[in-house]
């Protein structure tokens, strides 16, 4: 080996190697410079670009839901609030044996098979460090039992979440409404960023109408997350602005009184403050518990509500359309006075029926033997029909329409919750337009006693009564009183239709009409004389009985012979005190029979409590 090396030209080979080694070193330095060049490109020239990408990687923005505003009645009684509900959550990565944990938890609190099924399903879609709910709506006792045993179960957490709660349950459900989960359709309409953390939205009533104020403004937090999405720390926080608390014009106690008075019947009560249109009572029977809807009502429960004969989902005060019956008489009488067709002393002999020349048909009075000589006051006090057949015939339907329109008949009142029906105040033009038929004189006659085509909602009746009580000054019925945030000026209800005189009549005509309405209660023959109980204030009112089904020409309506649901509706409109009105009340009792005996006492109870409580 040594000798072989000796043959080789060691010096030349060494030089050759050295030159190659130098070339290699140069190549190495060039390669290193290339790497440095690449680093200059990445770290200096493109630094900002990659910094942005790196930030986007780690920082994510999480929305924080604002707390929904409370709903209160005018005296501060809570109608809608947010209660913490407790949820048992499990974090999979901290649980050693899931099956055993669930079994053992099941020995402490009630866990149904459905709970476990839903839990397993959600578990598959969540990261292992994210909490998955196992049991919803824990009772306080269950929370306490879990808290005591907590040490046995690593990875379980009791999470508190705010849930909408209606402490008065069904009392004011038709005005307050309810919230429920946001639907697909609503998703398209709401601002997605403001609702990013919100799961519920107002569906009905005030909850829907004042959704924007109640909801508030979403907050945000920037959080640092790792590659799995786990939140590591909060970098920046913009707190949410809570929703405004909304005070309603409703008076819970008065509402309760109205409901109790209605109990056992189907119907609605509306009470309005005649000075400003604030709705004090909006009661409709056949109600339901709004709390059922918050977390999604089951199909079965919903079907029961929907198909029930009592129609609990139906807000009669707003959506129910009824013939006003005799309650329309003071308005038509006033129209006659103002029109000059009659004077307060104009008298007519009522023999129990009325006929028109072109027709052999008899238009009957409710009192078979007739009222005898009848003037305006008597016609209102005793509710004479014949007087109004004659008056309507003379005036004609279009002039009645013209005079009654300012009172709001046949129009939506514009109340600040949705779902209102408009009712009908017929005219020849209306019949041609809607029915495509000419108007007949007979239809004018029955319109004179609030039957036929005429339909009103209880709210409309209350509004019209309030305008009458105000001697023509209009009011705007509303439920919203004020919205407020802590530490800021409350926002009061505002309307541009305030205090306008819209129904014009001579003062003496107003007083004649109202005097007659007082005598409905205080007169010897008044149809609502049972309300005369020596109150320190005077009530003005008018009873009404609306036919549900027509009887044949020669038949007599005998209440006992008619099925309950085909009996007449009982109505009563009233206001008090009659000289300086404060409250107007409209009552309807479906199939109740006579307004004076059934509906009037309900209105009386409301008025007595409202005015009695004030003195």
């Amino acid at each position, binding site marked *: 080996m040594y000798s072989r090396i000796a043959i*080789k030209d060691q010096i030349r080979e060494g030089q050759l190697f050295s030159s*190659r080694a130098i070339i290699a070193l140069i190549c190495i330095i060039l390669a290193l410079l290339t790497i440095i060049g690449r680093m200059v490109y990445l770290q200096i020239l493109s630094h900002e670009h990659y910094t942005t990408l790196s930030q986007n990687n780690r920082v994510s923005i999480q929305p924080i839901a604002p707390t929904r505003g409370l709903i209160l009645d005018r005296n501060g009684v809570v109608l809608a609030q947010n209660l913490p509900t407790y949820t048992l959550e499990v974090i999979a990565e901290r649980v050693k044996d899931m099956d055993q944990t669930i079994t053992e938890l099941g020995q402490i609190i009630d866990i149904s098979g459905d709970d476990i099924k839903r839990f397993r399903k959600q578990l598959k879609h969540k990261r292992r460090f994210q909490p998955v709910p196992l049991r919803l709506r824990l009772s306080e006792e269950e929370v306490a039992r879990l808290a005591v045993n907590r040490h046995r179960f690593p990875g379980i957490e009791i999470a508190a979440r705010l849930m909408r709660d209606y402490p008065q349950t069904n009392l004011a459900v038709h005005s307050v409404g309810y919230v429920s989960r946001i639907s697909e359709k609503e998703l398209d309409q709401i601002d997605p960023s403001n609702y990013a953390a919100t799961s519920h939205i107002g569906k009905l009533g005030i909850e829907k109408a004042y959704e924007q104020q109640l909801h508030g403004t979403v907050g945000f937090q920037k959080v640092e997350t790792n590659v799995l999405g786990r939140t590591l720390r909060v970098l920046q926080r913009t707190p949410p602005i809570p929703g405004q608390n909304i005070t309603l014009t409703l008076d819970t106690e008065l509402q309760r009184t109205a409901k109790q008075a209605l109990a056992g019947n189907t119907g609605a009560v509306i009470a309005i403050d005649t000075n400003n249109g604030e709705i004090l009572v909006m009661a409709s029977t056949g109600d339901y518990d709004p709390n059922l809807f918050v977390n999604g009502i089951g199909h079965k429960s919903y079907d029961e509500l929907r198909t029930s004969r009592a129609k609990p989902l139906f807000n009669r005060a707003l959506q129910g359309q009824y013939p006003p019956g005799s309650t329309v008489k003071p308005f038509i009488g006033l129209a006659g006075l103002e029109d000059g067709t009659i004077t307060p002393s104009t008298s007519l002999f009522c023999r129990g029926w009325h006929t028109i020349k072109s027709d052999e048909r008899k238009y009957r009075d409710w009192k078979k033997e007739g009222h005898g000589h009848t003037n305006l006051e008597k016609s209102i006090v005793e509710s004479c029909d014949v007087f109004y057949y004659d008056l309507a015939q003379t005036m004609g339907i279009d002039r009645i329409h013209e005079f009654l329109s300012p009172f709001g008949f046949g129009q939506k009142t514009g109340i600040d919750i949705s779902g209102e029906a408009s009712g009908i105040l017929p005219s020849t033009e209306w019949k041609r337009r809607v029915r495509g038929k000419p108007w007949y004189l007979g239809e004018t006659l029955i319109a004179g006693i609030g039957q036929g085509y005429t339909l009103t909602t209880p709210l409309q009746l209350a509004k019209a009564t309030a305008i009458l009580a105000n001697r023509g000054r209009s009011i705007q019925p509303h439920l919203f009183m004020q919205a407020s945030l802590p530490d800021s000026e409350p926002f009061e209800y505002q309307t541009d239709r305030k205090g306008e005189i819209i129904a014009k009549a001579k003062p003496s005509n107003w007083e004649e009409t109202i005097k007659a309405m007082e005598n409905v209660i205080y007169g010897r023959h008044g149809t609502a004389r049972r309300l005369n109980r020596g109150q320190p204030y005077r009530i003005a009112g008018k009873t009404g009985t609306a036919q549900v089904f027509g009887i044949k020409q020669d038949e007599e309506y005998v209440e006992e012979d008619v099925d309950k649901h085909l009996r007449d509706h009982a109505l009563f409109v009233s206001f008090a005190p009659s000289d300086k009105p404060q409250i107007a009340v409209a009552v309807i009792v479906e199939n109740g029979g006579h307004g004076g005996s059934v509906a009037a006492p309900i209105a009386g109870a409301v008025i007595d409590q409202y005015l009695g409580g004030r003195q």
Partner: protein
Amino acid sequence: MNQNRDYGRWIDRRQSGSFTARSLHMDWPLLLGLLILSSVGLVVLYSSGGQDMDLIWRQCIRLGIAFGLMFMIAQIPPHHIERWAPWIFGAGVLMLIAVLAVGTVGKGAQRWLDLGFFRFQPSEIMKLAVPMMIAWYLADNTLPPSRRAIVVTALIIAVPVGLIVKQPDLGTSLLIAMSGIFALLLAGISGRLVGGLSILAAACAPLVWFFGMHDYQRQRVLTFLNPESDPLGSGYHIIQSKIAIGSGGLYGKGWLNGTQSQLEFLPERSTDFIFAVFAEEFGFFGILVLLTIYLYIIARGLYIAAQAQDTFTRLLAGSLTLTFFVYLVVNIGMVSGMLPVVGLPLPLVSYGGTSMVTLMAAFGMLMSIQTHRKLIASG
């Protein structure tokens, strides 16, 4: 030089039993470079591994084994290494065949040979055995090598490379081929021939693409050409790695503060992609320092090669050093998106055992070559 010679004689006189610096057969400048580099590696690993001290201890144990092996190999005189070269090479080839026959499959490739008590990759041995074999063969020939010598050398390279490609392990086969080619280049093969071979290789590339590659290998090349085409799949590594490097900027985000690595956006951050962690946390200036350390080690290796006294040691030292450099360039090139992802670690920094042990064995040979020089001369 003269001083060294005198020093050597002084050693010769006292070679029996005296426990001095020289008798440890350590090349102190090289050892210093390796120690600094592996210390830097531990610092980065502490950060990339989420401050896991267990990880650091395991890496320290590996480093201890690797440095121990280096120390032992440094004690073996180069002429012993020369004498064993063909035997080691032969044994290595047999083991590669055995791997293909009975090897253990891991991560979709057959690389491991399980001897019951011990599992290892014969391809790692070939990283040393191929340069040794070529250096042994060319040392008997006059240089520059004749055509016949070039053909034989090409065979020495082709047989193990072919077997390793079969496993398949593209990264290692490439590295081994490069080490052999470096030995040939250092031996003085003509530039023209090198150019011709390069063209031939380029012409063969399509054949390799269609017949020589697995689907996942083709995918890697495609991903390299356009990582954004598959941002959640195989392109994800490169995208995240570039974000880590780029967002590091001039000064870096600071040790333990790299968001890409600490928040685990960067995959393989303790192993193949540890360079991206370093770049994110220490920035451009940190990279300049790191490359300086590497350049120092490589320059020292080439110096040792140039100082070597015979063809075998020269070629061996030279090609081992250049192979070390290839590790560096391929790793940084792949992490920074200049080369396809082939799965080579950043030498002496990445977490992991096998390649580190092989590398330190190579440095042991370099030290042996450097420290046994005078003894051969005087013997």
